[in-house]
């Protein structure tokens, strides 16, 4: 089932949603999806808009979700993908295709109990740009795996990802970032940063940053860290009167706030923050 919180549902035909060219929207297209579904979103050329896509399944059963987003030339899309607690077991397959001179900013927050995300972003045209941010937060026995593939199929393309995994209790988060530059795709830029934060002795975060580059004339860089919050940071904040818990929250907020601030829906941001702070 698909549900539109605002207008814009008239662009939906069967399982294909098409935003006509030259559409510039101030307010986001806010969509709620439930249960096993498959949808294709198309954004025609010269558009500028934001999607907010949330999963809210009707049952606790394993949910399969397959979505694709095609962005035509010169369009700028912000794509917010949220899977909250209510979506207990979920597998998300998301593909994003970016044409020439188009750009996408994918912001995703994953808070489901058992979650498997496969996010593929393909830069198909010259000057295509993608920024991907993913946050996964787990606690108790929750297991979350987030795979992000960013592939450069065109020269002069730009891809960057900054993903954060936070784990508490017996939680487990796996972040895989694979960025690939195909042969001949000169002047491509590929960057990635993966951060894992463990908050308890039994929690785990796996981060695997991978760069596959088959071309010489490129710029690329990656970095990954996993660890507990630094003692000296905690000490510093505590020395100004913050309790240890307040200090931890503030430091974690520092990791995720820059990402959440990009979501232009205050109520949603507050709800996400609340769930995240409950888990940490």
């Amino acid at each position, binding site marked *: 089932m698909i549900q539109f919180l605002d207008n814009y549902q008239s662009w939906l035909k069967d399982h294909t949603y098409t935003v006509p060219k030259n559409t510039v929207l101030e307010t986001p297209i806010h969509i709620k999806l439930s249960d096993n579904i498959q949808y294709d979103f198309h954004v025609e050329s010269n558009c500028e808009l934001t999607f907010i896509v949330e999963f809210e399944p009707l049952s606790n059963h394993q949910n399969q979700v397959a979505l694709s987003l095609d962005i035509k030339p010169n369009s700028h899309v912000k794509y917010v993908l949220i899977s909250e607690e209510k979506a207990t077991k979920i597998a998300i397959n998301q593909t994003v295709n970016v044409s020439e001179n188009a750009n996408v900013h994918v912001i995703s927050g994953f808070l489901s109990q058992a979650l498997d995300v496969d996010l593929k972003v393909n830069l198909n045209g010259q000057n295509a740009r993608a920024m991907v941010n993913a946050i996964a937060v787990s606690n108790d026995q929750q297991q979350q795996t987030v795979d992000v593939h960013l592939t450069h199929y065109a020269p002069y393309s730009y891809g960057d990802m900054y993903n954060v995994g936070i784990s508490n209790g017996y939680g487990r988060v796996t972040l895989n970032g694979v960025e690939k530059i195909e042969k001949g795709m000169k002047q491509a830029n590929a960057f990635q940063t993966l951060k894992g934060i463990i908050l308890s002795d039994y929690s785990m975060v796996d981060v695997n940053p991978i760069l596959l580059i088959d071309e010489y004339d490129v710029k690329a860089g990656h970095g990954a860290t996993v660890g507990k919050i*630094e*003692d*000296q*940071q905690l*000490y*510093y*904040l*505590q*020395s*100004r*009167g*913050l*309790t*240890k818990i*307040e*200090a931890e929250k*503030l*430091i974690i*907020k*520092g*990791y*995720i*706030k*820059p990402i959440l601030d990009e979501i232009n829906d205050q109520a949603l941001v507050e709800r996400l923050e609340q769930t995240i702070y409950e888990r940490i």
Partner: protein
Amino acid sequence: MAELIIKNLLVNVEEKSILKGVDLTVQSGEIHAIMGPNGTGKSTLASALMGNPKYEVTEGTVTLDGEDVLEMEVDERARAGLFLAMQYPAEVPGVTNSDFMRQAMRATSGKDVNLIDFAMSYEGAIKDLKMREDLAHRYLNEGFSGGERKRNEILQLKMLKPKFAILDEIDSGLDVDALRIVGHSVSEMIKQDQFGVILITHYQRILDYIKPTHVHIMIDGKIVLTGGQELIEKIDQSGYEWVKEELGIDFVDQEANQ
């Protein structure tokens, strides 16, 4: 009137004995300069008072108005009125100076801090210390130069108004102009708020701006000599060698030794 009393304080760092029995009493409005060669334990005293987990107190007592400071967690010490301007403050990416400062003020004062009042006084303090105007929105110490970090420590002191401030080598890394700004600013604050100060330094220059009421010389983990401002001049002229000779103590410069 508040009183901080340190008695026979012994501190280890990684099992190595650094402070070997420090006694010091500081009252509101007093400025105690602690001077001494490198590696004699001055900064260890500062860190141990604040409760840095790397420093282990093995003996002695510290009380603030009768309350046992050593029993307190780091944040409890801050809320009791201790402030440490650190030599190497940590960077905290993603946390803006203003968010942090407002939360710290709420924590130490126990009261909610009105956003507009806060913004006004914070901006005023930033101007006083001649810091970048966008400071409030920059992340805490991230990408700050050495001098900016030191000034940010003093800015926090100005906002938090503690009972006792420990200033750990706030003069290192400051150029002549920055030193004057920081020196003036701290000295104004003390005049206004009458808090007690422990000022740790091995340069005399900062003492041109912040005039100590007491001067202590620390050598090899102990305060070996206490006096007034006349000691500063003597150190300025003849270094610390005369102290050794006068008191007949033998010590080696720990840092040079390492």
